[in-house]
């Protein structure tokens, strides 16, 4: 391994580390909602992918409305902030509605019922997104499945360029992912540890019946958490617009759901700290795979394969995940 690393210069390795941090930031945004929802409610939310897809398209529409192609300077970032807020609030409302109208009817039922329900919600939302995209574009039935590159040309100009930081060439969107990832980690951490609702969420995660007996309306807490989780999924979906490894199609959420699940399982089901650690590990694994596949092996799927190796090794060596207490499948 050391020999393998030595054939790259320190610059390439440092750039890989920073790219890995960016990937970790993206994974944190993708997986935070999943882990919060599972941690409190014990619901493995398969609709998360559909929320990501809707976040991508809502983000694209927000960019067309508020931003302009390759906007330079601060003028590119302020509309982007507006798009993130729009997407977060929109998806939070949709997620809260789904929890309030559908998911809460199945609390106390076997986990398979909730999985089937959220899978059904995902399928319906995915189909609705497809119908909407085809209507909006006036295109043929496969328009929603065809990569749509235009939204990626909107937003800050720096997203399409390399930025030089301390002599290292870093993709502008990677720096943004690191920043937003850090904001999400800090925001969720502060929300969980410094607010009354965060306290209720942590108490309810441990013993929802006792929390209810203390006068905490745990159903309202569930709705808020589902909403926040869905909002974060939407923001992650918007970020995928600029990811070279993802095409903007209605399948984008399903594609992104896989690494999100890997991060949640590797970190330990329902632990936010575990998710952050796992996102960092997975981010570095992925970018190390990119480094190897572009310089050593001609094997484009190596980064994804490394993620699955990470998952398999974790499940064998530590079935609870890095910081989890409950074994996967241990219900």
């Amino acid at each position: 391994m050391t020999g393998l690393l030595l054939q790259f210069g320190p610059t390439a390795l440092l750039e890989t580390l920073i790219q890995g941090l960016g990937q970790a930031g993206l994974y944190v945004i993708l997986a935070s909602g999943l882990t919060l929802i599972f941690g409190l409610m014990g619901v493995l939310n398969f609709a998360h992918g559909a929320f990501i897809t809707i976040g991508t398209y809502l983000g694209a529409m927000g960019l067309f409305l508020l931003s302009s192609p390759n906007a330079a300077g601060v003028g590119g970032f302020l509309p982007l902030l507006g798009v993130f807020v729009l997407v977060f609030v929109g998806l939070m409302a949709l997620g809260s509605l789904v929890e309030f109208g559908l998911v809460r009817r199945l609390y106390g039922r076997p986990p398979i019922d909730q999985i089937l329900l959220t899978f059904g919600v995902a399928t319906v939302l995915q189909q609705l997104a497809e119908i909407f995209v085809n209507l909006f574009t006036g295109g043929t039935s496969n328009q929603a499945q065809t990569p749509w590159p235009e939204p990626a040309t909107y937003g800050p100009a720096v997203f399409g360029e390399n930025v030089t930081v301390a002599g290292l060439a870093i993709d502008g969107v990677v720096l943004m992912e690191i920043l937003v990832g850090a904001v999400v980690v800090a925001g969720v951490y502060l929300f969980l540890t410094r607010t009354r609702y965060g306290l209720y969420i942590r108490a309810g995660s441990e013993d929802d019946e006792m929390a209810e007996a203390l006068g905490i309306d745990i159903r309202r807490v569930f709705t808020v958490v589902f909403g926040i989780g869905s909002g974060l999924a939407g923001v992650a979906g918007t970020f995928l617009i600029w990811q070279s490894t993802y095409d903007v199609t209605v399948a984008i959420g399903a594609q992104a759901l896989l690494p999100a699940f890997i991060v949640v399982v590797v970190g330990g089901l329902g632990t936010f700290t575990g998710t952050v650690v796992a996102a960092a590990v997975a981010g570095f694994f992925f970018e190390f795979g990119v480094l190897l596949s572009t310089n050593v092996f001609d094997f484009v799927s190596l980064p994804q394969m490394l993620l699955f190796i990470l998952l398999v090794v974790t499940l064998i060596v530590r079935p609870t995940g890095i910081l989890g207490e409950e074994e996967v499948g241990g219900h």
Partner: protein
Amino acid sequence: MSLLEVRDVHTYYGESHILEGVSLDVDTDEVVALLGRNGVGKTTTMRTILQLTPPRKGRVRFRGEEMVGKRTSDVAKRGVGWIPEDRRMFGNLTVEENIRAAVPSGSDMGAAFETAFETFPILEERRQQDAGTLSGGQQQMLAIARGLVGDNEMLLVDEPSEGLAPQIVADVGEALARVSNEVAVLLVEQNLRLALNLADRFYVLDHGQVVDEGDTAAVDPGSERLTRHLSA
């Protein structure tokens, strides 16, 4: 009108008929002991009052208001606190956070901490410690403190002495005696001496039915009246 009125309550777990027409009353500032062997429905009675296990038939009224059909959090908000059998601390939350979670929003948090720490000074020393790392006695104190700070008019206290060393049982008994000066208490307790010392009245449950009731002053722990229902 009593503070708490339970009337002809029938509660089931699945198809198992656990409470078969239980009726009882608890008045303001009264301590009432609910006695009986293991498995006769004492804990289920508390869960029924809290609507954690709602009855299929019967009424539960608190301050004259019907509780059946309400959510547990609504029952708790009306002033019914629960100190459960196995304490059920939030083990990964600190002592302070456990107390904070029990204080209703809008209540004076500072006053709540003062009440809790005045009653149990050891909890102030352990304020930043995770509740899961406390000893059994300290966890019981925290459980009682959570009940105290909840602006409750009544506490449902389930087996507070279970698994505790004799000296700790005495401390817990003393704390409950102080608590009972401020709120009404429905107490389930296997330690008959402790239960009769604390309570003004008692009910005896057997096979999901109230089979005896009376003033604690009229009985002693060894009396035939109690032992025929309580001995294994």
